[in-house]
Each structure stands twice: as structure tokens, then as C-alpha cells.
């Protein structure tokens, strides 16, 4: 077991804070990605596509 000495609480809190900040960032990006992907799917399901998307489709 690692011995952190008399200031263990500060060390553990610092690492916990760093983990919480990184976890928050990752969660925000993942949830944002899912939300945006769902919105894009909904638009496409309703037949709405971007002009560039339509142009690509017309070319194809």
C-alpha cells in the first residue's frame, strides 16, 4: 500500500478532482455526440437533408 504521509488528504483530493474534471469532460462530449446524432437521424427520417447532401445525392 502506498504511504502518502501526513498530507494524504490533499493528495487524494487533488487526484479525485482531476478524475472528476476529466470524467465530466468525457461525459459531456459523449452525451453531446449522442444528442446531435439523434437529432440528425430525426431530421433525415423526416426527409430533411442538407443542400450539400442533396447535391451529393443528385450527382450519385
Amino acid at each position, binding site marked *: 500500500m*502506498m*504511504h*502518502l*504521509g*501526513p*498530507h*494524504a488528504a*490533499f*493528495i487524494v*483530493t*487533488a*487526484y479525485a*478532482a*482531476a478524475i472528476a*474534471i*476529466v470524467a*465530466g*469532460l*468525457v461525459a*459531456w*462530449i459523449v452525451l*453531446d*455526440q449522442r444528442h*446531435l*446524432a439523434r*437529432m*440528425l437521424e430525426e*431530421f433525415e427520417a*423526416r426527409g*430533411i*437533408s*442538407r*443542400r450539400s447532401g442533396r447535391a451529393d445525392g443528385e450527382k450519385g
Partner: protein
Amino acid sequence: MSLIELANPSRFLAVSGRALPWLSAATVLAFAVGIFQIYFAPDDYQQGATVKIMFIHVPAAWLGIFGWLLMSAAALGTLVWRHPLADVAGKAAAPIGSAFTLMCLVTGSLWGRPMWGTYWVWDARLTSVLVLFLMYLGVIALWRTIEDPTQAARAAAILTLVGAINIPIIKFSVDWWNTLHQPTSVLRLGGSTIHPAILVPLIVMAIAFTLLFLTLNLAAMRNEIMRRRVRSMMMLQAASPAGS
């Protein structure tokens, strides 16, 4: 592949989609190696085990500064070359850079209390990093305030370049003024003053943090491209005769 080819958002999404799993794996691997080394790193002869806070505090500080430098390069890309992905990169980096700067401030305070006897002091290094954090919040607020992405990008780019003045102030604050914060001990002329037993884990953690930043920034850029697609679809829907 050239930067011009990557300028196409669809092309960027395809390339970044392939790169992200590899970057994520490299990030996890680098953190695993770094944490393993931290576990066996010796205590400092003066600071004891609190030196372990350095392994997250210093990389977080570097990445806070790196984020602003990345945003500054993106700002030049927006204002000078009008690269279509430059403002996407800049916007994506702001929350990530702010998070790393916050991490630097929080871990620094927690390191300062046992070593200096205080969580905070208004010295040049601490204050200039706090200013960096506030500037990040300012750029994020600006992006959220202006609805049109093109106008928001220009305003944010100008604010970013003006704010870049703070970066050398942060770097040299410990040399220009008497500060409670210790002087530069890693990136300095004449070499590092840190023993290799502590320096090596620090460098590994810095690599891990950098990989984490790049991974998150790439993912956030992909989100921003999707957000703009959603926005254009909403505008198309609003402009359609049926409104549906």
C-alpha cells in the same frame, strides 16, 4: 493527405473517425504507464509525498497553455486563411482548455495548502493562470452569445489573439516578479533541475495528458461539425413552405 483535403468536413469526419479509436487507446496506455510510474516514484526530500500532485498539476498547466496556443493558431486560420475547420478547432478547444486550467488551479491550491500554508495567494503566476481561466470562460461565453457561427468565429478569434498576450506573462511571471510559486524547473535553459526518478513519470504523464487533450479535441470537433449540420437542417426546415 494535405490540410486542404482535410478542410472538407465530411472528409475530416471520415479520417477523424478512423483516428479516434487509436488515439483513445494510446491515451489509455500512456495513462496506465504514467500511473504505474507514479506509484513507484520516490517522495521528494523536502515536499514528501505531496510531490505526487505535481504529476497532474504540471501537465494540466501545460495543457491549459497548449489549449490557448491551439486556439491562437486556429484564430489565425480563421482570420487569415479562412480555413473552414479552423474555427471548429478553436471552438472545440475552449471548454477542454478551460477544464485543464481549472484542474491546474484546483490541484495547485491543494498542493499549496500543505507546502505554503495557504490555498491561494495573489502572486503573478497564480493570478495570470486565473486570468487564463477567465479568458477561456469569456471565449466560451462569446461563442454562445453570437448565434451566427461565422460572426462568432471572428469575434472569438480576435479575443483569442488578444488574450495570447497572457501566455508569455504566465511563462515568465516567475522570472519577472518575486512569486511564492517556484521558478521553472523542467523547461529551462541549462536543463531540468528535477531528478530523473521524478522527471520521467512527469514526462510520461505530460504525454498522456497531451494525448487526452488531442482525443477530446478531435471528438469535440466532430460534435461541432454535427451541430452545424443540425443547425443548417433546422434552418432548412424553418424555410420550407410547410415548415415541417
